[in-house]
């Protein structure tokens, strides 16, 4: 009896101490429960969840880039229209000039990166505030998007391969009716990897006498996270399996997570965000890091543009509208600090899922679009207030 009591008091202490990290998961769970209830379970149907993740894709990649931009104390408002513009350029290259799809993708990724470099140049070398230079970028690329789509209006993209990026699913290894086997296998592999890495970090921390959570807490965490991963993969497996969008999203997060956590560049980025003067005196070029982070943002805007155009199977005049706000909101919901120097790309992905769940759920229950905007705005405020409050406590 006492043991159980101890267990729960330990759990609650742990939750309280890490409320910032677990907060967004709790928020996500609450949102999902509410919409499931009001949609009569439709929200958690395999079809809707699968769709939800595909919709998250183009915001999630932006949120990853935005996280780094906010970490170094800047902002990029142009990402939405850059994504729209890049998508249109891709469509025009394919449809009007018949350029092979592979070349198109490489070309527009390059284009996005160049646009990012341009913004980075203005911020780092011309001394423009990021807010101003990217606000200008927002106008410029909105104009550019209108310009290139003026003659044609919406451009339908007939290319199968291109459209599969956001609408296709990974192939299966064996045919079993009703379930997607490879998806299940990947889910299990993911769980295995997660458990392995948790134990590895724990062992390492113990080696250096650092603080670790107790075994029972670790097991609780493992069981909890594993069952969520398994549940999601199972739901996806009963539908079409994992989509290419999800693959792209996971790969992007994986790469960025690795860069920010394990590499010298990542450390430099956090240092510049934490204290630019100290970073400069430590031999880090703040200008170069700024340039790099904006270039990466431009690159990811292009990825987002490709994902979105592919999802709609077309380039439209309104593509990319308000993406920047969702991306910024996702980053804040995911726990980046407005003061710079703090934030994780993995958090931002959860933030992106939260924002996408909100939109998708509100659409599903037929909420008026005007109310939807208001709700999204309020959620952003709540997220940042929560972040600021819990941060000050520590």
């Amino acid at each position: 009896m006492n043991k159980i009591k101890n267990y729960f008091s330990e759990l609650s202490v742990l939750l309280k101490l890490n409320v910032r990290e677990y907060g967004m998961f709790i928020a996500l769970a609450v949102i999902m429960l509410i919409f499931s209830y009001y949609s009569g379970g439709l929200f958690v149907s395999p079809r809707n969840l699968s769709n939800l993740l595909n919709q998250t894709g183009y915001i999630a990649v932006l949120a990853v880039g935005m996280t780094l931009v906010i970490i170094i104390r800047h902002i990029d408002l142009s990402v939405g229209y850059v994504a729209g513009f890049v998508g249109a350029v891709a469509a025009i290259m394919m449809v009007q000039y018949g350029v092979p799809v592979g070349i198109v993708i490489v070309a527009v990724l390059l284009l996005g990166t160049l646009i990012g470099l341009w913004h980075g140049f203005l911020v780092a070398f011309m001394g423009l505030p990021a807010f101003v230079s990217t606000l200008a970028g927002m106008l410029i690329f909105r104009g550019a998007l209108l310009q290139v789509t003026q003659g044609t209006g919406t451009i339908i993209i007939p290319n199968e391969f291109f459209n599969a990026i956001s609408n296709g699913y990974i192939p299966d290894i064996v045919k079993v009716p009703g379930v997607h086997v490879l998806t299940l296998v990947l889910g299990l592999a993911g769980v295995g990897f997660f458990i392995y890495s948790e134990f590895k970090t724990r062992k390492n921390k113990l080696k250096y006498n650092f603080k670790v959570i107790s075994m029972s807490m670790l097991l609780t965490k493992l069981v909890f996270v594993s069952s969520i991963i398994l549940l999601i993969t199972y739901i996806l497996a009963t539908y079409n399996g994992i989509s290419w969008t999800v693959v792209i999203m996971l790969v992007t997060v994986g790469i960025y997570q690795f860069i920010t956590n394990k590499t010298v560049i990542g450390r430099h980025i956090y240092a510049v965000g934490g204290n630019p003067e100290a970073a400069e005196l430590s031999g880090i070029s703040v200008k170069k890091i700024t340039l790099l982070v904006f270039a990466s943002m431009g690159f990811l805007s292009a990825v987002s543009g490709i994902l979105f155009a592919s999802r709609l199977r077309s380039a439209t005049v309104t593509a990319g509208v308000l993406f920047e706000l969702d991306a910024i909101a996702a980053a804040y919901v995911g726990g980046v600090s407005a003061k710079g120097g703090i934030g994780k790309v993995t958090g931002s992905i959860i933030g992106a899922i939260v924002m996408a769940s909100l939109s998708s759920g509100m659409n599903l229950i037929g909420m008026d679009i005007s109310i939807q905007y208001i709700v999204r705005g309020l959620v952003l405020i709540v997220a940042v207030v929560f972040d600021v409050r819990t941060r000050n406590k520590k």
Partner: protein
Amino acid sequence: MSNILEMRNITKDFPGVRALDDVSFLVKEGEIHCLVGENGAGKSTLMKILSGVYRKGEYQGDIVLSGEVMNFHGIRDSERMGIGIIHQELALIPELSVYENMYLGHEIKRGSFIDWNETITQSVEFLRKVNLAVEPEEKVKNLGVGKQQLVEIAKALSKDLKLLILDEPTAALNEEESDNLLKLLTELKSHGVTSIMISHKLKEVISIADTVTVLRDGKTICSLSKEKNEINTQVIIKNMVGREISDVFPKRPIKEAGSVALEVKNLNAFNRELGRDIIKDASFRVKKGEVVGIAGLMGAGRTELALSLFGNPLQYVVSGEILIEGKKVSLSSPKSAIEAGLAYVTEDRKGNGLILIQDIKQNITLANLREISKNSIIDANQEINVANEYKQSINIKTPSVEQKVQNLSGGNQQKVSLSKWLFTLPKILILDEPTRGIDVGAKFEIYTIINTLVDEGLSIILISSELPEVMGMSDRIYVMNQGRIAGEVEAKTATAEQIMELATD
């Protein structure tokens, strides 16, 4: 005399550390009470509790002020009771003017509008009281650390004040400014203001204190009173560190200085923002295995000289020649300076030395990540090992190297900053006020480290406002005065008067 303040059985825990352990603290009305102790002893924490930074409930114990038990829920509450605190870390807003800063939070109003004329008039008066000759309209960012400190004190005075708390107020001041400040405290005392001063400078503690309380490892060790003739250096040090330290400056074996490590010829630097020359025609040399001191008053251009050498991060217009080991180098960024073998421990560790939100190990390795990475991927274990080595060898007091630097006491932050630059394995180490805010024991440790380093052939440039330190540690001393190198003296034969004369004419 009655007790104005009694702190009873104060205990304060931080995750992993007990900062204060059942501390009791008694202050008599109208006295100057000095609080001393090693870095991390808990002095700042005790004063933060007194001034309401930590609220009732975040610690155990009672604060009794003039016989009444207090329940402070924030700084405002303690201010209302006439307690003013000047923190170790300055809290002014750089972009605002001196007078705006002074009256921030207690503006002088006529109706519901701020009366700026009255504000300026009053601020002038308080600035005069602290002997600070600046225009009240001057922006705080244009003042050096020393002057900012005086503005802080003027600000505290401008509030109706009974009990003034100063956390290492003279750490950033030169001798003249310090003397002025100490005089000021005596003056305030005659007007009935009680002061509590934290300081690592025992000389001034002895000259000014009516009572000295010693903290060690979060406990009250003893309270010494002037009336009973208990206050002297030996007793204080012994109680602080638990052992006796005989030499203030450890001796190093006299060695023939080696070849020239660094030579600077006709260095000039022009600050575009200020629109004037800050370094004028400076030439000097540092040999291998030598400690070269740079003395001078605040504003003499010592830090600017260091920055111009260290890759010129503030983008002055610099001309002149720099030779390292006889070869001409062009140091266009801190990065190239580091690669050329220079390291610079800044005087302002919070402003541009450390990344406070990151942990100890990340700060120590930041300037030399190459050493702990392969193919640009950081080896986390090696990083921990490196940090632990410095934690031991420099004696950084912390439960773990994963502690955030902002949670360390001032002195221990300084040790992290020093470790960071030692880890770049420099040939020439520039130390800018390296012992500011460091206790006697740790000072001794740092001096010993300096000696070990020069013994290994390193060259050290020691910038310090404390004359005894420059004179005690250097082989040769350059004295700076208004951007020029006014003279060079041999440390062994030089006198303080000689140096002051060069620094002031």
